[in-house]
């Protein structure tokens, strides 16, 4: 640590450049992780809010709630601690000023997937809905009447709830009758038993239903099968993991060049009896200091940037994830320093003193 700190102190510009590069890499990693989390939340936050174990869909729906069609009476074939039925349809909703894609959930308000209202009231009458508070950013407010693209029904926002987006669309929660009217129009009465799925909380999923046409899908599996969700996560995570590799290579190159420049000095020190382990520990300590400062500055810069980002940018920073990524960056930087350590170990002190 002594050598490491003194070298950094003497060569401030050189090491500031290395810290700067590490800072930019960590900034990019933190920002991408925030983007990944934000986009994940766009897809899944309404489902996470259920705190459910599984969802029952028809076997032929291929894990897609939209494609699944059940009857309310199918509930009788489900053996679970808690059960909630759900109908779902996508639509474009407009209040006259703005239009947006929405996902309409038809639910029973006395079942466990009923969200808490953060503003306004619970739906009571026909065509009343609770909306995701994400719609407030688009100018929607309590009392707004929503005209739907695929239906003649007009919905009325009576309240808002938080964390309510499904597959990137804000959710409108209404009762099943409202859902049926939106989905089936004049045929609503004839289809009043129709739902898309049954959400359950259960300890054991294997014997949850004996109906072969139904399939119980764990919530995490259900989310992974949302259109585009896995592909989007894989892409962003691939970029993050790639950046880990890049940062290791950058640190390795920088430190290797610095080490090569100091081969003669290290050789003299080895000739004087200073051990490989002391010199190696010094390089590792130096890398740790540089990486820790770079990551810390990148972290702070990310938080500052996040504070100024428009709300339309889907970023959500999870401190635990950022902490883990920060630690991984420091670890890969230290791995990058291993090349320098190997170089130091291989230095022949005899050559260094011109023997």
């Amino acid at each position: 640590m002594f050598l490491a700190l003194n070298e950094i102190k003497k060569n401030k510009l050189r090491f500031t450049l290395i810290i700067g590069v590490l800072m930019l890499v960590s900034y990019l990693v933190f920002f991408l992780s925030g983007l990944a989390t934000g986009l994940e939340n766009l897809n899944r936050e309404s489902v996470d809010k259920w705190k459910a174990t599984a969802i029952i869909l028809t076997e032929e729906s291929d894990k897609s709630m939209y494609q699944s069609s059940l009857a309310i009476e199918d509930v009788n074939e489900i053996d679970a601690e808690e059960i909630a039925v759900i109908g779902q349809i996508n639509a474009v909703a407009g209040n006259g000023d703005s239009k947006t894609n929405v996902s309409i959930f038809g639910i029973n308000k006395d079942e466990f997937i009923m969200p808490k209202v953060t503003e306004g009231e619970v739906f009571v009458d026909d065509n009343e809905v609770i909306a995701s508070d994400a719609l407030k950013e688009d100018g929607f407010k309590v009392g707004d009447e929503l005209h739907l693209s695929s239906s003649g029904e007009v919905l009325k926002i009576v309240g808002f709830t938080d964390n309510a987006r499904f597959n990137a669309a804000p959710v409108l929660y209404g009762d099943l009758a409202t859902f049926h009217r939106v989905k089936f129009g004049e045929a609503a009465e004839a289809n009043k038993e129709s739902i898309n799925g049954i959400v359950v909380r259960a300890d054991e999923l294997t014997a949850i239903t004996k109906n072969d046409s139904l399939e119980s899908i764990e919530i995490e599996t259900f989310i992974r099968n949302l259109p585009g969700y896995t592909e989007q996560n894989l892409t962003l995570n691939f970029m993050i993991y790639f950046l880990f590799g890049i940062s290791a290579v950058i640190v390795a190159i920088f430190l290797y060049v610095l080490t090569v420049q100091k081969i003669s000095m290290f050789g003299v020190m080895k000739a004087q009896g200073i051990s490989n382990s002391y010199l190696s520990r010094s390089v590792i300590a130096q890398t740790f200091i540089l990486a820790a400062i770079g990551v810390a500055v990148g972290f702070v810069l990310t938080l500052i940037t996040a504070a100024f980002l428009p709300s339309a940018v889907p970023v959500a920073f999870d401190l635990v994830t950022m902490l883990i990524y920060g630690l991984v960056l420091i670890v890969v930087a230290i791995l990058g320093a291993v090349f320098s350590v190997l170089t130091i170990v291989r230095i022949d002190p005899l050559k260094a003193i011109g023997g």
Partner: protein
Amino acid sequence: MAVLELKQVKKTFGSGHKEIEAMKVTDFSADRGELIAIIGPSGSGKSTFLTIVGGLLTPTSGAVIINDKNLADLNEKERSKIRLKEIGFILQASNLIPFLTVANQLKLLDQVKKDNMTKKQLEELYEDLGIGDLRTKYPADLSGGERQRVAIAKALYSNPSIILADEPTASLDSDRAYEVMELLKNETKNKNTTTIVVTHDIRLVGYCDKVYKMTDGVLVQEK
């Protein structure tokens, strides 16, 4: 008793018809308080001698004994420890660490050597070598003579029994060279160490107790 002994030491490089005898069979010994010069032209085998004595090069045959320890019986880690504890090196271009101040050059040794000097001993070392005012300076800010004095201070740190100096005056003008040799002579006597100076500059031999000449790998005592 001899601090350093070479018994029938020989060093060859290569093999067969390409074999080069860099140092022919050599016997040598040095006692405490002796300042010894090894002189000879370039390529005569002086550096081979120095690196063998310093435990950096393993002889082809024979024994190098430092304070009763035969270097041939030690592994690289143990030889490294001997270099750290028993030998002080002074090299041609001083080879100070560029990013450490003079004080930190010595503080580094304080960290890696276990038998540290007391504050009083350290102050004496600064005073003896006249480098007390240079403590906060970096090597780049020092003159050639000052750098070499700091290098001597490093070599003398925690009183090693042997000082090995490889052309310590090569980069200095005559006045500075004599100054450095005077310093080495004084420290050798005051601290009762054994100092071996390898040089091709015969003007310096006057400072030495013994002078050996190396010619084509053969070491012969001249004084």
